[in-house]
């Protein structure tokens, strides 16, 4: 589903991703871990089409198509969904309008009819119930004044409504209380299917107890320095990142390597 080859990206001339290789097949769940500042969010945002980062090398194929030239909205319509590490507040734009605009666009792209007002509300309310979210949040401005946990649930709500093929969840588990983590994990698991793939960026084993990954990767200094099965996450939890030789190698600036 997703083939990333030697992906390099920089911001203001400063290299951040320094050659990422990653292959994700339909049905798989990949966890990406790694120290702060290693480039996890950058990778997630580059995949979603953020132009703050200049892609300086490598390729990204999604369902056999080179997505690097595509605008963020085209990627979203093709089924790529990014749950933001820091969901953005948008005063004056209500949550329900955003959901409707997003769903209309995506359905239109898939050749499906727009939902009428009743169908739309019924769908949203059902998904909100799943996420145990207060319906008031629908009519408030997008993420404005939402608590940290409400913002994260709102991301998963959007995902549940839009039903993407490739979901990239950037630290969706951070800042959630224990109950909320279970609810969010349930939301994620509900979407797992042989047709879908997921990339979970996380710092903690906690989420991976609920959403068990097929693969775990460690990103350090803009490179994947170790990949393994779900046991790798447990090992990281115990030992931290220091023991990974590759992590040190990657930590050296590329030009000196």
């Amino acid at each position, binding site marked *: 589903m997703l083939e990333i080859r030697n992906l390099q990206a920089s911001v203001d001339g400063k290299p951040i991703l320094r050659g990422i290789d990653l292959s994700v097949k339909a049905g798989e769940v990949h966890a990406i871990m790694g120290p702060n500042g290693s480039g996890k969010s950058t990778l997630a945002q580059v995949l979603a089409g953020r132009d703050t980062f200049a892609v300086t090398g490598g390729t990204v194929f999604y369902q056999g198509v080179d997505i690097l030239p595509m*605008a963020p*909205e085209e990627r979203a319509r093709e089924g790529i969904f990014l749950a933001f590490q820091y969901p953005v507040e948008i005063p*004056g734009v209500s949550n329900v309008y955003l959901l409707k*605009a997003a769903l209309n666009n995506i359905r239109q792209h898939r050749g499906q009819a727009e939902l009428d007002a009743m169908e739309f509300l019924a769908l949203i309310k059902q998904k909100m119930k799943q996420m145990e979210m207060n319906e008031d949040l629908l009519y408030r401005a997008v993420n404005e004044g939402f608590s940290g946990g409400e913002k994260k649930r709102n991301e998963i709500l*959007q995902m549940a409504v839009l039903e993407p093929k490739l979901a990239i969840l950037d630290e969706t588990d951070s800042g959630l209380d224990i109950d909320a983590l279970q609810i969010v994990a349930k939301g994620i698991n509900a979407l797992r299917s042989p047709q879908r793939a997921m990339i979970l960026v996380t710092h903690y084993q906690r989420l991976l107890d609920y959403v068990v990954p097929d693969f775990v990767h460690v990103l350090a200094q803009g490179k994947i320095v170790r990949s393994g099965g779900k046991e790798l996450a447990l090992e990281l939890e115990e030992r931290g990142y220091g023991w990974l030789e590759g992590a040190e190698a990657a930590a050296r600036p590329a030009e000196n390597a």
Partner: protein
Amino acid sequence: MNAREHTLADYARSAVTLPGAGVPWLARARRSALERFVASGYPDTHDEEWKYTSVAAIEKQAFRAASHRDGDLAAAASLVDQLALGPGAGHLLVFVDGRHCPSLSVPGRLPAGAHMTSIGEEFETAPESLEAYFADDDQETIFAALNTVFMADGAYLHLARGVVVEQPVHLLFIATQDGAAGAIISPRNLIVAEEGAQATVIEHYVGTDGAPYLTNALTRISAAANASLTHYKLQQEGAQAFHVAGIHARQAQGSRLSSHSTTLGAVLTRNDISTAFTAPGCEATLDGLYLVGGRQHVDNHTRIDHGAPHGTSHEFYRGVLDGRSRAVFNGKVLVHPGAQKTNAHQANHNLLLSRDAEIDSKPQLEIYADDVKCTHGATIGQLDDNQLFYLRARGVSETMARSLLVHAFAHDVVERIRVAALRSRLEQILFSRLPQGERIRALA
């Protein structure tokens, strides 16, 4: 011929056709205003009050006082059909090329004690009570003097003590293609609310895009003790028009004024909006929105005179600038000696949609009392990249994402309108101006 000679000649030519020609005090007022104009001429950009707004283009046009004969009434009538607030929703007075048009007006039934007429008519029939409101005031701009020289008509609303007019008074000023071309149209309005009276007035200017003309309007408002007046202005002049207007209020004890001004049309707009608190406990709200593009220029000068204690003023102006447009906001707040416990808050936020648009925003606080609370804030910004990316990452096109954010920004001012028919009119205009606006409207 220079501007002064031109104006003198124009006055000599048109004076006899102006209403109230036989009223001595009015003739004196016109003459003293003419003297003020002749003494100073049009302002240039060395004048601090006109630093960012050049009126050289107005001077060059050498507009002549409107003749009020060429207007196309059929076209005006169809505009009235489009623009009236709706059956039963308000008291409509229509002015075509500056003159009251009774056949298009629908004044409806006003409560006893509410007197609504055209000022031209009042000059002819009962000018005595008006003198105090028509003296030339050199605190007002030179355009106000010019208005006094040439004013031909406008609305007069008088509310006796305690009278409450429930429905809005809608003053519709239509500039027609032929009637307005090359003309200076000088509407003059007077709103007088006696003690405890209440009303809402909408001043609405529309024009056609054909030829240049100048609307030079002046509205004076007097709010007696505990009166409450709400004033809306909607400016949709033609694309080549010039629009200069003053709205000047005086407030007595415990009175409330709410002003809301929206600028959409004209190539050059200058609004001077002011209120003066003459007794304790007054309250004023000045809201404004300007949505401009192309080569439009809009200048909003506001002034609040806190001349007495326990006064409260709120100002909230927002602008959206596209193309090569330019905006000026100058918000003067004067807290006079002794005006203790004054509370004044001012905000001006601007959204620049293009690199070539420009805004000069300047708060001007002059405070001569010590026990006061005055705040102000001005911002100038572009659309937020994080917000745009977030929306696009949800499948929303860039065009629609931009429109959603612009709409959210402007809507904050539109939603302050309390007359539902006017508010929905403006929302409609907003949607029609935004790319993909109809799709945004459909989300509601």
